[in-house]
């Protein structure tokens, strides 16, 4: 852990580090979820070919 926290986020406490990384992961899941899994028609249609090409559940 020490190696990484020194290299990417200097002097970040372990707890804050976990929080921040968890936040990043959640953000990523939200982004993928919105573009690839949204039930909103317009979003679905815009990303239609992408969804199929990623084998996301579609239609």
């Amino acid at each position: 852990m020490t190696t990484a926290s020194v290299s990417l986020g200097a002097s970040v406490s372990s707890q804050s580090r976990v929080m921040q990384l968890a936040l990043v992961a959640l953000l990523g899941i939200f982004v993928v979820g919105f573009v690839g899994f949204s039930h909103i028609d317009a979003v679905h249609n815009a990303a239609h070919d992408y969804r199929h090409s990623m084998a996301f559940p579609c239609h």
Partner: protein
Amino acid sequence: MNLFRNVVFIAAIAGLVAGVVLACMQAYATVPLILKAEVYEQAGGGHHHAAPAATDTNAMSTAAPAGNAMSSAAPAPAEAAAPAVEDEGWAPADGFERFAFSVVANIVTGIGFALILVAVSEFAGGIGNWRQGVFWGLAGFAVFTLAPGLGLPPELPAMPAADLTQRQIWWWATVAATAAGIGLIAFRKSLPLVILAVLLIIAPHIVGAPQPDSFETPIPEGLHHQFVVAVTVTNLVFWLVLGAIVGVVRGRFTGTATSLRDSFA
């Protein structure tokens, strides 16, 4: 929020590059097959999203008439929970506009996948160089493409499928279980935990993905097979590129290529 900013920055660069690469591969490998499938779909009576054959029926007899009814009318009333005000809502025009939106979707979700990859790998010490990134990419491919693809193979338009929400739940559950399993195998050395990992990985497939009532489709088997191969291969390259670039960018970013050797084995 120094760490947060750095991680997002690395993910943005890696996701952008990998997303563009993926969009280019899709333009040649998968999109032409989707367009071909849409020809069969049009011949079979139009394009119907948000209309999984019958909400909760398990009898083929009910599913079949529902499918026919949908080809002439708006989505079934049972599906009205989804905002199906217009038949299908706005859609990008075919040609450049459609392609442009696909590129945007690729880049945005490329960054999304990169955020997940970088965040998770930082917990394990970070991706130190491109070679470690390739391994992380392989793991991402296994988690996000291989495992869900076993139960829910890539589908072309006009292919039958079970209820959308149920498939999406199964998809995410499979991703989570496979990720946990691979994590246990990679970072834990005890045999019971590895056995638990294997159980986690196979559990979603024992439960089984939601399947359609009928597999009847106008799409030729050969076309579908070609599509499955194209999707799998393009995703493999995407994940390898994504992982490798995260390794390179992170190495540049930190100035020193920090090693992952403690976290692996």
